[in-house]
């Protein structure tokens, strides 16, 4: 996901630096408050660890291999603000020494991998695992699902950054000057790769390491940094709200999302043959908000409202899942405590 120089226009690069700056500022202040004089050695060692983690070749079932980013893992162990700084430092060293990711695109890479990834991952982790014991399976599930969502969200943002390039800057004869593919290609291309390969790798590594830490180094899993208090969730909610506010970017995309064509649109796309099954099931599930828009409402407002509603539904489902898991876990613990006292 490291975007090299040359893929994004200088204007986009500048904008992404500007967007990342306040996050860095906040992160430096918050981390300093918590870690005080330990900030430099703790962050340096964990950043070095994150660098090494990104070098590991992870074998996936089926024979492919890949690398993890580890942003969610770092956020879960150190807190999201420390993760922002740690991963940023790693990205800087990778860009300087190994040419992995550009120097002009550094702001964009930081936003995708060091800000969106750990914040989304940590948010999902928190929602699923809130108030559970450090060795609870809910924490493990939270870390796994969180890391998956984190990297997919990061790839979505990267896809959007790449996809808006041809519209933003092209030569007089229409030649795109930077990344040549529009949103309808760039977003699905990024998403598919991350939904199917990079996401599972991230979840696998995060889950494996987290489970082992739970068994052997539970102090690390509790985010037991001296003086560290439970993070305030409202900051994360704010970040999610901001991301949702950015949904109008989706309106820049022309046409239907890649691969989400209905039977009619397939015909428009020149498909002469519509799979019978598709025609049969087409009317079977009437979407409550067809085309992500409320009926009889401005397209833009409808689109944004749909985004918020979608986020609310997903958050609610995750919350229910969390509650259910915590009940199950506490029941199990009570049972085992009962056995303990009886025996």
């Amino acid at each position, binding site marked *: 996901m490291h975007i090299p120089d*040359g893929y994004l226009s*200088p204007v986009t690069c500048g904008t992404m630096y500007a967007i990342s700056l306040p996050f860095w500022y906040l992160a430096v202040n918050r981390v300093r408050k918590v870690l005080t004089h330990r*900030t430099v*050695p703790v962050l340096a*060692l964990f*950043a070095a660890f994150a660098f090494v983690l990104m*070098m590991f070749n992870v074998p996936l079932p089926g024979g492919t291999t890949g690398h993890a980013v580890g942003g969610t893992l770092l956020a879960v162990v150190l807190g999201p603000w420390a993760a922002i700084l740690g991963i940023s430092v790693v990205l800087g*060293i990778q860009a300087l*020494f190994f040419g992995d990711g550009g120097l002009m695109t550094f702001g964009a890479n930081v936003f995708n991998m060091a800000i969106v990834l750990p914040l989304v991952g940590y948010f999902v982790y928190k929602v699923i695992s809130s108030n559970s014991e450090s060795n609870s399976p809910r924490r493990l599930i939270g870390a796994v699902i969180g890391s998956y969502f984190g990297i997919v969200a990061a790839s979505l943002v990267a896809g959007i950054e790449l996809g808006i390039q041809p519209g933003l800057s092209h030569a007089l*004869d229409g030649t795109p000057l930077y990344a040549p593919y529009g949103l309808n290609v760039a977003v699905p291309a990024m998403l598919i790769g991350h939904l199917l390969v990079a996401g599972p790798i991230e979840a696998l590594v995060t889950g494996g390491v987290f489970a082992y830490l739970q068994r052997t180094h539970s102090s690390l899993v509790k985010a037991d940094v001296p003086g560290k208090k439970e993070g305030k969730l409202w900051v994360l909610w704010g970040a999610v709200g901001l991301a949702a506010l950015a949904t109008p970017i989706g309106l820049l995309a022309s046409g239907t999302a890649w691969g989400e064509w209905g039977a009619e649109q397939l015909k428009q796309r020149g498909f002469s043959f519509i799979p019978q099954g598709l025609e049969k099931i087409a009317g079977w599930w009437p979407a409550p908000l067809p085309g992500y828009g409320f009926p009889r409402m401005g397209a833009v407002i409808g689109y944004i409202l749909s985004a918020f509603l979608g986020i609310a539904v997903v958050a609610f489902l995750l919350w229910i899942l969390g509650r259910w898991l915590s009940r199950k876990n506490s029941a199990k613990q009570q049972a085992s405590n009962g056995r303990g006292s009886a025996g």
Partner: protein
Amino acid sequence: MKGESFLTRNIGSFTGALESVILTDDLSRRQGLLQSLDPRVKVFTFALFIVVVGLARSLWILCAIFAIVIILSFLAKLSLVFFLKRVLLFVPFTAIIAIPALFITPGQPLVEIAGKAIMTQQGVHTAGFLILRVVDSVSFGMLLILTTPWTNILVSLRWFRLPPLIVDILGMTYRYISLLLHNVNSMFLARRSRTIGGFSGAENRRWLARSLATTMAKSQHLSEEVYLAMLSRGYQGEIYVLNPLKFKFRDSVWAAIAVIVAAILLWGNYR
């Protein structure tokens, strides 16, 4: 991936990174023209060139910049083959991304087969832009890092008013990356020397998770020890560095040439 190749591949990736770190340090201490320049001037001028690469709107300008890069690599006494190998490493990845653009970018047909446009002029141009921009920008980054000791880059970053906290973390991270790479490399070598035949993918994944978790716990432990060591040496939240850098006459000459060349290249955009 069987056990043997899984271990070998990881060992390869760790040693590759270690080698590159050591080699970079070695080359940056050679006696070439670029090495003798003040790092602050180099950071500024190379950043300027990277911005010019980003702003260029003609393939000719990008080609001219690549010619400048080659001249600079001579001035840095870098072996051309070595330098090109390091820079062109990034071409295949971008080429794979650029190839479809040759065919799907709408525009004037360049190659036609059976009356249908197969490759368009705009497609060729956009692919050229992408590849040349990547090569040019990576080249300047590489030239900077191959001709400047890391400590001097850190001193210049401080001079450019980057927060000292960030510069300190950057410096220390780099130092411990080498150490941790050494550690995991030894872990994998030890494992490999005890392995006959292979393991299943699932077993490899479990082992990988264990070694990563152990490394993470070790890093945390080490950070505590490093902090205590720093405290015992009088650390009070700030690292003081000596600034051995001095502007020389040749630095101003170099800066002037670089700014003029950059201005000429940018002027080429509007010609």
